[in-house]
């Protein structure tokens, strides 16, 4: 680092040559004749949510909202993203997909702003002395201002400034090596002081000891203006303007580093790994405006050029201005227009619509005539001349890449460092067979990226599938464990119950248990009790009640005589209860058996049978009557009544047997 600062102190700075490179016709003079002009406010502004590298911004306005110039309308979503601000005051009239400047020609979500003509600013938070604020605060402001690289790639600037690596050199890129484009040239001529101020802020944010401003020697006016501005600046001792010979593509980030410092950024690494950060001069101005004036990035300088324009020049274009609105200002001859190119002729892309908006990265619009950009000649066979390898600024082997791209041999393409290709087009420019080499590389890069994304997804799918299998196995194991636990518990309960029953040798309980067991096991679950059984049941309960009553009386009694009487009463009653119970149990079993039989052969009862049935019913009634009498009877009568009842019951049984035999 010391050696480098020493170098700055001396006025003569060593320049390293660019590897490869070409000299296409510059065509820059057409658009430098006029100062940067303003454009009348367009009626509508179309603001794509994705104007930078990374994820699209997230709208924070709704249709119908009134916005002021500079107001936030979409915030950055995620780390690699940039905010979007209203370039003028007006009303949000739509949030919809519109064609955006992209080689695919696809539409993407845009915010449509209808301007009200007032062009009224919102309140701006300017910083008087940025040196009082910590760098992190300034980075946050730069991020909030929605600044992304103005040179072409559109990488969010705040992210580039917060790499966390120690930076010793800030390189300001005023190279503008691509033909036709003069936006940075004009910016340096007219706003040199703002560039120097912006560079000072960037230097402060990065903590970079030195700042190199690289300019190609085909811009003498810009160099003079920048030198004058630097001489006046207080930061003159920390900055140096480095002028080097014009060659395409010296403006590439890694190429510029190589020219200015002689160091090569290794494959797959960033300039920050070498302690360097490269920013475009336009970005420096945007940073100065964001910090010193508090203005977000809402306009940029765009070159309008091409033979189909009457007066090619540079304009201050609001972001979102439709291309045709700008081209009208430059006197577009629509009949002569054959190709509209966004960007330069080497790295730009053509679009097929005129209503495509200017974005933060749109540094040039070329309205070209047929003669200017003739259709590409048919590609011939590769003659292995090797010119492409000599022209390549990244020291790649374009010919090898070409063969492997044709064969779709992605492994070999990666082996030959395809992703170090900056798609500058120098190889295709020198190719005597007019092979569209860059298109092969772009297609292959896309195919490899798609393949990698697919592999990443299939890896994710595999993980999800395996997780699902594991989860299902776990679930079924848990279910099985639960089932087993339940079965065990049920078995335990059953055993306990059986033990209880054995221990509690109560005939009543046993009977109930038997009845229950029968009920549970029995096929006809709900056996209707016959009238007889009902009667028996009633009697049973009545007898029980009486026995209980007697018991109570017995316990309350004090008299010996009465006690004796009651005791004998109770014994009898208990006997009766037991008998009734037996009758009831037997009866219900009988009824069940009978019912089954009836079910089998229900039809056609003969008269005789009917008569017998009536007799049976009558006998039953007699039995009941006797039973009632027995209940109410005194001790003396009971014995005779019981005898009668037994007779009657026997008769009933006999009748029943007869009836069954008949049936």
């Amino acid at each position, binding site marked *: 680092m010391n050696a480098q600062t020493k170098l700055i102190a001396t006025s003569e700075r060593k320049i390293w040559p660019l590897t490869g490179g070409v000299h296409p016709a510059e065509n820059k003079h057409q658009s430098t004749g006029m100062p940067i002009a303003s454009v009348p406010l367009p009626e509508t502004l179309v603001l794509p949510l*994705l104007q930078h590298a990374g994820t699209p911004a997230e709208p924070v306005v709704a249709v119908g909202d009134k916005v002021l110039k500079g107001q936030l309308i979409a915030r950055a979503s995620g780390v690699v993203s940039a905010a979007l601000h209203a370039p003028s005051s007006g009303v949000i009239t739509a949030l919809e997909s519109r064609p*955006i400047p*992209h*080689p*695919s020609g*696809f539409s*993407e979500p845009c915010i449509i702003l209808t301007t009200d003509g007032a062009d009224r600013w919102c309140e701006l938070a300017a910083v008087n002395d940025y040196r009082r604020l910590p760098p992190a605060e300034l980075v946050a402001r730069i991020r909030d201002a929605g600044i992304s690289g103005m040179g072409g790639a559109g990488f969010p600037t705040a992210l580039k400034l917060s790499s966390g690596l120690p930076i010793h050199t800030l390189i300001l890129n005023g190279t503008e090596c691509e033909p036709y484009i003069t936006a940075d040239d004009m910016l340096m001529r007219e706003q040199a002081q703002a560039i120097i101020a912006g560079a000072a802020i960037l230097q402060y944010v990065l903590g970079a000891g030195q700042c190199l401003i690289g300019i190609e020697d085909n811009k003498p006016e810009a160099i003079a203006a920048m030198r004058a501005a630097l001489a006046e600046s207080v930061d003159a001792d920390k900055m140096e303007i480095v002028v080097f010979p014009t060659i395409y593509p010296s403006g590439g980030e890694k190429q510029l580093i190589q020219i200015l410092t002689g160091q090569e950024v290794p494959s797959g690494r960033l300039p920050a790994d070498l302690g360097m950060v490269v920013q475009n001069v336009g970005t420096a101005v945007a940073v100065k405006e964001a910090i010193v004036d508090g203005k977000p990035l809402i306009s940029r300088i765009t070159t309008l050029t091409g033979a189909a324009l009457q007066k090619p020049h540079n304009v201050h274009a609001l972001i979102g201005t439709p291309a045709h609105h700008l081209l009208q200002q430059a006197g577009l001859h629509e009949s002569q227009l054959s190709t509209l190119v966004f960007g330069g002729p080497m790295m730009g892309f053509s679009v097929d619509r005129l209503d495509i908006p200017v974005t933060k990265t749109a540094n040039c619009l070329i309205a070209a005539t047929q003669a200017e950009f003739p259709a590409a000649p*048919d*590609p*011939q*066979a*590769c003659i292995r001349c090797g010119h492409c390898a000599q022209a390549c600024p990244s020291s790649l082997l374009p010919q090898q890449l070409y063969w492997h*791209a*044709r064969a*779709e041999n992605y492994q070999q393409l990666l082996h030959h460092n395809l992703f170090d290709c900056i798609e500058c087009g120098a190889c295709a420019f020198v190719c005597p067979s007019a*092979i*569209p080499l860059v*298109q*092969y590389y*772009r*297609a*292959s*890069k*896309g*195919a490899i*990226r*798609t393949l990698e*994304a*697919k592999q990443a*997804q*299939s*890896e*994710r*799918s*595999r993980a*999800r*599938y395996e*997780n*699902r299998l594991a989860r299902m196995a776990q679930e079924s194991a848990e279910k099985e464990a639960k089932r087993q636990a339940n079965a065990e518990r049920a078995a335990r309960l059953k055993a306990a119950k059986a033990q209880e029953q054995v221990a509690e040798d109560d005939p009543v309980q046993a009977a109930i248990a038997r009845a229950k067991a029968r009920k549970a096991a029995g096929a006809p679950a709900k056996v209707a009790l016959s009238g007889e059984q009902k009667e028996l049941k009633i009697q049973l309960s009545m007898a029980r009640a009486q026995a209980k009553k007697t018991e109570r009386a017995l316990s309350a009694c004090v008299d010996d005589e009465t006690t004796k009487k009651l005791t004998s009463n109770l014994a009898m009653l208990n006997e009766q209860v037991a008998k009734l119970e037996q009758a009831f149990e037997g009866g219900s079993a009988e009824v069940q058996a009978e019912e089954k039989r009836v079910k089998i052969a229900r039809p056609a009862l003969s008269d005789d049978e009917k008569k017998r049935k009536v007799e049976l019913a009558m006998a039953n009634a007699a039995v009941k009557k006797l039973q009632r009498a027995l209940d109410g009877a005194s001790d003396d009568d009971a014995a005779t009544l019981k005898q009668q009842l037994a007779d009657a019951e026997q008769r009933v049984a006999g009748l029943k047997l007869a009836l069954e035999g008949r049936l």
Partner: protein
Amino acid sequence: MEIVLYAISALLALALLFGAILGFASIRYKVEGNPIVDQINEILPQTQCGQCGYPGCRPYAQAIANGEAINKCPPGGQATVNALAGLLDMEPQTLDAEGDEVPVTRVAFIREAECIGCTKCLQACPVDAIVGAAKQMHTVLADECTGCDLCVDPCPVECIEMRPVAVTTRTWSWPLPPNGALIATDRRGQMS
């Protein structure tokens, strides 16, 4: 005679030494499982669609390792067949399915207004890419859907359809230029 004995004993000693080294290495550096199955499984697209006749990609990988044909994976397309052929050093076969050589990426889409919340598709999805609950509307996580279409048939109201994934500016890539001539004589006969 003695010299022959020396030679034999020296060779014997060497044989025992190397045998011991190899025996140790075969135990110490034993490879668990069949690594070729893992390699095959990595090439397969992991859609878990079962179109090969096996219940998932790994079972098919296992089957390929056991000699099953390599051309039974329609979601992978010809590219997968070629990759498998390269891995297994076989002749590339043509894909054993009708349809495109380059499969169109599709994802399931539930017409949510028609969904009755039966959870049948949830159970069918091999990668848990459908969210929902009983009697609640279900929806597909498009990013996780593999396009296997296993959820389409179980749907009792037929509200699931397979939709091709739209290409956006972020997934778009430049097309390969139309193939020109490799050598000058390829253009013979084109002048008329």
